[in-house]
């Protein structure tokens, strides 16, 4: 019998609760009934957990905190909501000076629009962004998630655009969410087996008129935030693979792309 899962189970048993009676701990309960050494380990673990739990919960707020908190919440309640303020303000009368400003603004906007149109009409030379630029871009995206916005594949089917490559199959535990105001789709993939909280994310976006990427995953580049990132372009989409591992992000990245991810 492997001891590691048993020790993980021991660590998951809360002292003073009936965890050991639960069906998922039956293997541990059985092992405990047969192994006196394991019983001692279990007893020590429970003792440790009890001590630690007491220390964990022994946090006292600083003196006067309750009063400060209540005062700040009272103030919060008294301040009118932004919407209330807006509706309370009478609309200002439009003076001729104001109309002049509006007209001047519109003329400026028209000029800018014309310049932009000419710019886009000119033939653009596409270039491949540097590895570092790609890595920093993905770092910024990785900082922009809202934990509450994740949707599980099992709960809500994801938008399309997931590449049809075997090493990156979607599973029901995987999650997705839009980033960059729905311009980029991010898949948060569960690695199997789960190890050390490793993170594998695939960002999917539309190609731009100025950038071009290699047709298959490159060797990648370490990002300033410790991820290993690589981007490629296929099927009218740009894919950014971002991998984070506590010990070696590059190793995990190569494990993912080492499965011969080729353009479909």
């Amino acid at each position, binding site marked *: 019998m492997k001891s590691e899962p048993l*020790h*993980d189970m021991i660590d*998951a048993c809360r002292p003073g609760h009936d965890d050991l009676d639960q069906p998922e701990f039956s293997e541990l309960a059985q092992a405990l009934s047969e192994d006196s050494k394991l019983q001692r380990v279990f007893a020590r673990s429970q003792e440790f957990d009890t001590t630690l*739990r007491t220390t964990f919960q022994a946090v006292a*707020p600083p003196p006067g905190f309750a009063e400060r908190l209540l005062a700040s919440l009272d103030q*919060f309640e008294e301040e009118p909501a932004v919407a209330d303020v807006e509706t309370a303000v009478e609309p200002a009368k439009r003076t001729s000076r104001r109309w002049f400003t509006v007209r001047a603004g519109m003329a400026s906007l028209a000029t800018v629009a014309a310049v932009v149109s000419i710019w886009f009409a000119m033939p653009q030379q596409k270039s491949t962004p540097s590895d570092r630029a790609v890595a920093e871009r993905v770092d910024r995206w990785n900082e922009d998630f809202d934990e509450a916005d994740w949707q599980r594949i099992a709960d809500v089917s994801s938008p399309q655009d997931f590449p049809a490559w075997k090493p990156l199959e979607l599973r029901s535990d995987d*999650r997705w969410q839009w980033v960059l105001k729905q311009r980029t789709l991010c898949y948060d993939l569960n690695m199997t087996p789960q190890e050390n909280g490793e993170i594998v994310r695939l960002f999917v976006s539309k190609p731009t008129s100025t950038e071009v990427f290699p047709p298959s995953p490159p060797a990648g580049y370490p990002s300033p935030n410790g991820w290993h990132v690589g981007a490629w372009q296929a099927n009218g989409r740009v894919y950014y693979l971002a991998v984070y591992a506590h*010990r070696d992000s590059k190793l995990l990245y190569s494990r993912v792309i080492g499965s011969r991810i080729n353009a479909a």
Partner: protein
Amino acid sequence: MSAAAQTASSEPTRLRELVEQHYSAIYGYAYRLSGSVADAEDLTQQTFMIAHQRMHQVREQDKVIRWLYTITRTSFLKSRRRQRPSAAVNFELNVDEIPDRFPDDCPFDEERLQSALNELGDEFKLCVTMFYYEELSYKEIAEQLDIPIGTVMSRLARAKGRLRHAMATAALKHTDESPSSADDQDQKQPTPIRSLK
């Protein structure tokens, strides 16, 4: 007075009651997660402000504290969004370093615990705080964090390994520093408690 008006006028009272009942628990939770008094105060304040705005979401009064913990946790994660992933932490545990019995006056106080916690990555810190502070089961933690059960078990085991190591180091240091008799020293010699991993 209409029902709506009654509800509106009772909101401040309800908020005050909510704060008075739970501010201490929420502060403690926020402190364990953030590791600083100032951040814990901010997180607590933010939690109650959000709670005030979403008071209508509360259906079951006996689950209010769980709801507040969730708000605190989400606010904490949002505040950390702009921070780098935590640096790799050495989770290796030398079981020979763990004393069989910790001295009663072990100096592993809550400050030492907090400094050990601060060294953990957020994902480990969350699991271990939910386990010890909220006393959630690993299944409940998995549900709340929306991660696989196996990941919770693994994170718990590793985080606890790190805390044990910190606790053992503190206890050993204390043993070395304490003037005591030879008999006492014999009793405090570290002995392995388990051979794991």
